[in-house]
Each structure stands twice: as structure tokens, then as C-alpha cells.
């Protein structure tokens, strides 16, 4: 699974960071990007889905394997 954050849409709500801090990088202004190439480690799939489903900007896409 991959979790991809569209940084054009991100407005820095930080909901994804609260739910899946291990999958998200936050810059100095508070905007988010996915770590690395967005690959979700085994066992963190539900956290990634929650991050996507709580984003008020719908900026996060989940790509299932």
C-alpha cells in the first residue's frame, strides 16, 4: 500500500500527522508530505486509511496493492 499526499492541496490541518506521524513529514510551516515514496509499512494500513479519511482537503490518496 502507498499513502500519497498531494502537497498542492494540503493546507496544514495536520490531521494525518496526528493519526500517522510515522508516515508523514511536516515542514516548518506545518504543511505535510508523505515520507519517502509513500510506502506504508505492514501493520500501518489502517493508520494510513484513517489519515486519508480525516483530511478535510481530501489531499490524501491510498493506493492499495
Amino acid at each position, binding site marked *: 500500500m502507498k499513502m500519497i499526499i498531494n502537497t498542492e492541496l494540503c*493546507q*496544514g*490541518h*495536520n*490531521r494525518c*500527522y*496526528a493519526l500517522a506521524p510515522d508516515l508523514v513529514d*511536516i*515542514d*516548518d*510551516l*506545518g504543511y505535510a508530505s508523505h515520507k519517502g515514496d509513500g510506502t506504508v509499512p505492514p501493520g500501518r494500513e489502517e493508520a494510513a486509511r*484513517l489519515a486519508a*479519511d*480525516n*483530511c*478535510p*482537503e*481530501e489531499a490524501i490518496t491510498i493506493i492499495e496493492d
Partner: protein
Amino acid sequence: MAHTEPVEDWCRDYDIFDPGYIRDPFPIWDRLRDECPIAHSDRWGGSWLPTRYSDIHAIAHDPTRFSSDEITVAPLEGGPADGVKAPPITSDPPEHTWARRLILPAFAPRAVEAYRDYTVALCGELIDGFIDRGRADAASDYAQQIPPRVIAHLLGVPPEMSDEFTEWVRGVLELGLTDPDIRMKYRAILMDFLWAQVNDRKANPRDDLITRLLQSEVDGQPVPDTHVVGTCNLILIAGIDTTWSSIGAALWHLARNPSDRARLVADPGLIPTAVEELLRAYSPVTMARVVTADTEVNGCPMKKGDRVLMSFPAANRDPEVFPDADRVVIDRARNRHVAFGVGIHRCAGSNLARMEMQIALETWLDRIPEFELADPESVTWAGGQVRGPRECEVVFR
């Protein structure tokens, strides 16, 4: 409290200061969402009121057609002529972009962690002050006391002044909303205070946010002093009534719902999720936009200069988006609420506000796990721009 005529037709003649609406707007939004999703009224300067999540979401993402030039829900004739606005909340792009970038670093997740210990200690001291009495006003003795002190700390102004801040902010945002004299009086007090703070930092720079704003540059030019005063004015105003209202509404809910309370006491790890749900269900903040050119939203014709009330609270009760929208589901896991707005004006203080709410609830529930309303009839609410309980006496058990 504003004087209002009774409302018969909510679709064509709503009144956001109607006492019944302030106390319980939820059934009114439900009806409007079904019958007339974008209501209109000539009262209080005239405005449109969208009530569906999708319409509010779309308008918030369209700053070209919907400007933030006038964001108060009840504008006053002959507003302030001092040239000080409240950037970035009153800015449109391109000014908005740099005005927002100036303040975001102070409110990023890591930055607000610096205020955590202070907030924990503050909440503990407030509770020490009333726990032996066996009762307290959850709104005025607790919720109201937290945000002004945290903001004072952040801006680098004396925390002893927090009672005055609260009075000034209520003067501008609550009591002054429908009374020009009160609004201008408190605005003048706030402006004098902020200009004195700014002039002081210019003479004696310190390690605080006001100094950093004064030292910032945009396109190689120093940021004008009027801009810094406006931004500090915004931070002071935006961070106080709002957060206080959310903490108060959360405690009001928990006082009336023993099963939710018991769950959070047994499992404090659920508090961050519960905070999102309480923010959704009791969102405090409504903002306005001004239409920049004749247009249409979902079949509803709007004219240039019309005002639109962005009822984020109504959006958050839309059953199209939230199953069981009118029920507080304390462990709701999927919750795309817009209590902090959405789009380019997303609340810059949202990380700070969440931290304050989480600590306020954690500390209260740890020390006072059992409490209930002293008298449900005596709870009072403020509404308009910011909705929340103003008197909420609870007894501990």
C-alpha cells in the same frame, strides 16, 4: 444581548442573533439543509447562509469569487478608519500568501509543543483554585481562563493581563458585535495596547513573536508596523473566544453525558479523537465572505457585494457527510470536520487550539471524573461569530 424580532420564515428571514437559534441552531440547520440549503436574510446587513457541507467547502475553496475582505457576521457602518485590518484572515491572495507564511512557523506542531508544560501547569492551578468548593463554573472559572494566558505567553505580553484581554475580546467579538459603540470602544483599547507593545519591541527587541514579526521582510522590505499590529490583533482575538468556547462546550457535553465521560476517564488515549468529535458537533466559529462578482452557487444567484456566512458549524452537522450527524459519537474515527475552516484560511492556530483542548479535558477528567450541570436551565450561550457556553455551573460528585 441583541434585540431581535421573532423569525417566522427561516429560509428568507433568518436571524443569527435569535435567542432560540443561539441556544439550539441544530434543528433549524437540518430543516434549511432539506428545504432551502442556501437561506437568505436582510437582517444585520443582509447575507446568505449555506448549510450544506458541499456548498461551504466549495465557497471556502474559491477566494477569487468569495473575498475575505469583510469577515464579521454583522458588519457595522463606518467601521474603523485607522487602516489596520487583521491579516491574514482579512486578506485575499496574493497578500494572504505572505501574511500567512509570516505566522505559520509559530503555530506548527513542533512549535506549539513549547507551550504544553505551561498549559498543563495552568490547568492544574485553575482546578486547585476551585476543587475544594465542590463546584465551579466550567465556562468562566476554567475554560475562559486558559486561552488568554496561553496567548499572552505566546505573544510575549504579561499573563496577568489575561482578564483584561478577555474583556476586550468579548467587547469586540461578542458584546460589540451588534453594538457599534462597544465595538469601537474596545477596539481602541486593543489598538493602544498593541501599538505600545510594538513600539516597545522596536526599542527593546526580545525573543518573542512580536519582535520576530517586526524583523520579518517581504520582498526585501520590512513588514509595515500597521501589518504587525493587525496580525497581533488577530492572534489575540482569534485565539481567545474560540478556544474558550470549544473547551466550555466540551465540558458542557461531558457534564450531561455520563457514558461518554466514563469512557474518556477509563481511556484517556481516546481524548484526541473525542476532541475532534466535540469540535465537529459544537463548532464555535462562523466567518463571512463577500461576493466579488455576480455569480451562482448551487442554483442560487448572488450579487457582487453580497455577504455569505460560512457556517462551518452547520456544515459539520450535514448527514450527507457524517452518519448520525446530530449525535455525538465520542469515538468517531472518520471525521472530516471543518471546525477550523478549510482551504487557504484554515485556522493557523489549530494545532495550538487542539493542544489546549486536549490538556484542558485530560486535566479536568483526571481530577474531576464525576460532575454534572448544577442547573441545566441556568446555562447561557453566546452566538453570532463564536458560539459557546458563557455560564455553565457544574457540581462535582
